């Protein structure tokens, strides 16, 4: 499916989300309230199992700290149709939490542990949510913009 067609289809399916054409792929942005209470899993399941989309390959999962809020960014691809899309969810900055995708895409488990480690986002329903890269006793989440470590970081 081409990007334009995909954009139309997504608009039909998710009328309340903000959808726009990004630099490469259609971008679907949800506010956190729209996908709270387990609705996010439904959205992802729809994207994964609807015959038109079949987004079965989560090739990148990451997070961006925009100081006022976090953006979870999921890059999805269909190995059958070879089309891709970007799924974004806005999370609030105080208590960021979102449903874990580790039972939908198993690769998400490691990615989410990394994001938990470096951004401090809590994934509800994650089977083994603990730090994976930093030591257990590490204080703070270093990829947040307000992270500061005067001992280890030498600023240029």
């Amino acid at each position, binding site marked *: 499916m081409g990007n334009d067609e995909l954009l139309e289809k997504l608009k039909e399916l998710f009328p309340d989300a903000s959808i726009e054409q990004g630099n490469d792929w259609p971008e679907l942005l949800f506010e956190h309230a729209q996908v709270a209470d387990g609705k996010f899993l439904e959205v992802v399941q729809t994207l994964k199992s609807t015959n038109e989309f079949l987004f079965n390959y989560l090739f990148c999962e990451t997070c961006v700290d925009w100081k006022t809020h976090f953006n979870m960014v999921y*890059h999805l691809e269909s190995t059958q149709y070879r089309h891709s899309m970007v799924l974004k969810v806005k999370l609030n900055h105080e208590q960021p939490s979102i449903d874990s995708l580790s039972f939908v895409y198993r690769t998400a488990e490691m990615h989410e542990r990394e994001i938990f480690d470096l951004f401090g986002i809590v994934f509800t329903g994650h089977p083994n949510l603990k730090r994976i890269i930093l030591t257990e006793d590490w204080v703070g989440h270093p990829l947040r913009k307000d992270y500061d470590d005067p001992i280890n970081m030498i600023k240029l």
Partner: protein
Amino acid sequence: MIEEITTAKEGEMVINIGPQHPSTHGVLHLLITLDGETIKKLEPNLGYIHRSIEKMCESLSYRQFIYSTSRMDYLSAHINNHACAMAVEKAMEIEVPERAEYIRVILDELTRIASHQLWWGAMAMDLGALSPFFYAFREREVITDIMEETCGARLTMNYMVPGGVMTDIHPNFVKHVKDFIVQFKSKIDEYDTLVTDNIIFQNRMKNVGLLSAEDAISYGTSGPTARGSGVSCDIRKTHPYSLYSKLQFEEVIETGCDSFSRYLVRVKEMKQSVKIIEQLIDNIPEGDFVAKTKAVIKLPKGEFYSRAETARGELGVYIVSEGGTTPYRIKFRSPGFSNLSALNHMVKGYKIGDLVAIMGTLDLVIPDIDR
């Protein structure tokens, strides 16, 4: 990894592999639960070489941040640089001169061969055959010499810059690459006699470390790991970049889903890479090797993603720009990280010896996983 890692039950033994262990090729730490010699559970513990590259890149300019990527997956340094340069070029809408594209693809493929050769030697070493390592390095050293001549470094090149390549190729480049191809073609069969056809080796590899196609996709694996399970995922074919849409080569796919298929994919990929180099090496066009760019690169506001096929799989470079001279956020989607997540699934029920073999076929580079 779905189950919780609990303390060892009666008759089980928890054993630490790594951080310093010969089979992990670096400082990976694996916590495995054993019943006798059979692996019940495996949990990777990363971060022993987490160098905070993503944080560091947030304060580096778009010309500088490329160097840190050659230290990420140091065996595919050129391809990493290429992916980063592509991301910047895409954002700046820089047209890369054709000569630069030719040089880039040739070097990419040489890197792929060198990486696969090192993997081949190291994997044989994991299985206890020490000699193939030396045979692999014999050819690899020729590639390193070619790289050194043109790029000035043996391993971490930083040769590709936004808009092209840093300097023109060395006058002897074409000749030496051709010599290498002749030498390599005469030796590649030796690899098969020494390792592939060995009965012990085949027994160790066949029907070990099974990863079905669905699992391969679900675990987000890419590169030879996924292609060994019959998943077509070569970015060079599915989302062609640079010159790859014009080139004649096959995407190597094996459907065995076991360690041996992953092994075969890599060995065959070396031959395909030679094929690609042969198509390009005689026709490097004259012209500029780098497009004219401003001294200070400022990316427009937005998000940019570029994908490239490294020797280990798909590398994604995700740049979020606020319009300044430094990226707001950079994420490197490293192939090894996702491939490693499938390891627990692959080793369950096999022996310790198999774990080493399976890890060998995943071709993990730990700094690439930890970043």
